[in-house]
């Protein structure tokens, strides 16, 4: 067990290092931060001086090593754009993204499961067919279009919900939350739907397929034959057995909800890390880009590591010593 965990942790660290290396080799193609930092009146001498001070004249391997060295000491440098410590900026922005991801995740999970069950049980009903057709739109429409459509309908035409921002937030000592004010909650609705819609349709389709599969199983037929009530068959026996893959998928999708919040955050001017990242790309704010990419990869690698360990705990077959040969 311990050897397995150590091996997986070691692999994870390796993945992180490679992600960082690839990221740093890409930064050279994003553009030159010096141009944005100095303005149009700068001279060639200013450019040279700044490039040298920032270490941009050195090979990317050296820049990457410097980043790693400082990151190991908890120092992610200063944002070129804002001139403030990157760690501070990320911590300021993270609550917005996490709250949005949390609400979208809940929406996707519960909405998806409920609709999935409904469409599986009433699979020949008109309502189920309408939902299935609409879900195709949810899967195929790009996020920014859904966001703009929602803004157009609910902000511009109906005037019910705000089109941008987080509303009023309460500061709980380093964590800003929009859950405690009416305007904060209202501001959450449209972005959460936009961000969660894709995952919701995904989960719904997954639940439906799994459920249809399970409903064909012998034990369900036997349960029906024994005269157990329909409700009990559907929810106690069938649903329970569909949830295992759903939970796995949801766990993995949680990472992508946070990572892909970028587009939703840009459309709704949601002050989270995704918007920060977009701004960083436009300004070639290398310290922020580097820290964000590392943060996201740590998150993905972390989630995968946990999932792997859970499998290990659940699936006895993995406990076979691998060096002894395959099967």
């Amino acid at each position, binding site marked *: 067990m311990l050897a397995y965990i150590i091996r997986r942790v070691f692999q994870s660290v390796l993945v992180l290092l490679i992600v960082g290396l690839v990221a740093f080799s890409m930064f050279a193609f994003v553009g030159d931060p010096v141009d944005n930092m100095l*303005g149009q009146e700068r001279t060639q001498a200013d450019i040279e001086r700044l490039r040298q001070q920032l270490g941009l004249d050195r090979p990317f391997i050296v820049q990457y090593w410097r980043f790693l060295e400082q990151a190991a000491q908890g120092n992610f440098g*200063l944002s070129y754009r804002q001139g403030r410590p990157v760690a501070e900026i990320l911590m300021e922005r993270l609550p917005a993204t996490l709250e949005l991801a949390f609400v979208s995740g809940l929406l996707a999970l519960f909405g998806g499961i409920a609709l999935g069950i409904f469409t599986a049980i009433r699979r020949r009903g008109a309502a189920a067919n309408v939902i299935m057709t609409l879900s195709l739109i949810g899967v195929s429409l790009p996020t920014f279009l859904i966001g703009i459509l929602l803004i157009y309908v609910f*902000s511009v035409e109906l005037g019910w919900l705000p089109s941008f921002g987080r509303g009023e937030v309460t500061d709980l000592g380093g964590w800003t939350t929009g859950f405690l004010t009416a305007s904060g909650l209202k501001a959450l609705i449209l972005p959460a739907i936009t961000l969660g819609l894709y995952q919701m349709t995904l989960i719904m389709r997954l639940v439906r397929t799994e459920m249809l599969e399970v409903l064909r199983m012998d034990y369900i037929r036997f349960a029906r034959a024994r005269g157990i009530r329909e409700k009990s068959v559907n929810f106690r026996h069938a649903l329970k057995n569909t949830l295992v893959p759903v939970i796995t998928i949801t766990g993995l999708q949680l990472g992508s909800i946070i990572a892909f919040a970028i587009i939703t955050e840009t459309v709704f001017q949601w002050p989270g890390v995704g918007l920060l990242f977009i701004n960083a790309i436009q300004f070639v704010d290398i310290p922020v880009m580097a820290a964000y990419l590392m943060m996201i990869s740590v998150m993905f690698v972390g989630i995968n590591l946990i999932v792997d360990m859970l499998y290990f705990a659940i699936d006895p077959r993995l406990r076979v010593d691998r060096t002894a040969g395959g099967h």
Partner: protein
Amino acid sequence: MKTTAILTAALLASTSIGASAETLRWARAGDSLTLDPHAQNEGPTHTLAHQIYEPLIIRDMTGAFQPALATDWAPKADDPNVWVFNLRQGVKYHDGSDFTAEDVVFSITRAKSENSNMKELLTSVVEVRAVGDHTVEFVTDGPNPILPSNLTNLFMMDKGWAEANDSVTVQDVEGGQTTFASTNAMGTGAYKLVSREPDVKTVLTQNENYWGKDQFPMDVTDIVYTPIQNAATRVAALLSGEVDFIQDVPVQDLGRVGETEGLVVKTAPQNRVIFFGMNMGADDIANDDVEGKNPLADVRVRKAMSMAINRDAIKQVVMRGQSQPAGMIAPPFVNGWTAEMDSSAKTDIDAAKALMADAGYADGFSIQLDCPNDRYINDEAICQATVGMLAQIGITVNLDAKPKAQHFPLITNDQTDFYMLGWGVPTYDSEYIFNFLVHTRGEDRGSWNGTGFSNADVDAMIVSLASETDLAKRNETIQSIWNVVQEEQLYIPIHHQVLNWGMTSAVGTEVSPEDDPKFKFFTMN
């Protein structure tokens, strides 16, 4: 800590109750980069700073000079190398301390320091000295007739405040430091900073003790500034009444905003001209299919290219009427601009073809055009239109459009042979254009001249502008330089950009050519 929180809450409550009717909610695409007034020479940063800090002289909403912290200024009678500024008396900073000549000396010295991004505007200034409490002398390295126009974005900080808060030096991002002045602001301006979350929200409230309280409308009592990056969202926020005033209205939404009850769009020419540059200096260029020579080195080819471009079509189709075709690369209010030169560009395909044949390129050639796609209004679409227009005279253009962060280094590093560039003139004088775009590329001048154009006579004329005090003679020199630029077809001008501001009909303002609203001039009905 607790008391400050309560105080801030009380302050917020009192301001919002006191004048809720005149709160202006303002949105534009970008946020200010820093509150330090000398750390960045950039539009949105200066716009926010202008509400809180003041320079000696400002430009009003039409672009005209107006005294701010200086009441009058003139070259010293017996020494042409010295400008004398008389300062406004009785001006107080937001914290109650007096504005004096000491503060000017401190601020200019700070703006000239190593880490300042404003220092290029002050290269001619050798010394600033206080003569009494309310008079300041600027000593320049030679006569500098246009010094005042370099001072309109140079803000005055309080020396005592900067010293007390460890902000005497400008923030040094590369050195890894943050300063108090980059996250706090305390000036003499019409508005005080209440709170600020970068990229999220900035709140300002009126300065009750502002010296100009009775001279300006000052109808706006509170300002809530939110950057909204996505253009569609920004327009939606105005349409749904969540903001009162937006900058950067996309051209395709102008009609929608203008037709909405209670909203208006106001338009004015911007201080920015869009044009193409061509590498004429090299013997052979890399991005074309002509071996051994450079077609762009031939003035006939450059003239033919300019003639092939139909500026009216670009205006009507690409810009939806929102541009002003240009014949020279100076915006109309700049000293040296003439109506004659600006209307000189004519479309004439036959003449262009004849010129191409004359130059030996009857069959045309192919070349790469580098273009930004996130900097100017419809920049990539203009380039696409140009591709089609140049094809008419046989020039095959391969368009390569990139984000600005990748595009501009191509120009400054000599890696492009045909490129788009836009230029604004903060000093409102042609010298600024010549220094950056016409002078031979070198240490101090010509940093944006990607054409390879180099003419010793022209360079000498450009350098002489800096110290020529006889304005009539200076203007003559400016005209002769323009004549060369036009004859050589150094650049292919396209158009002057037009600015659009969207606002509720209650807001009254003119559109400033610099795209920088100064809210003390705004009226609210």
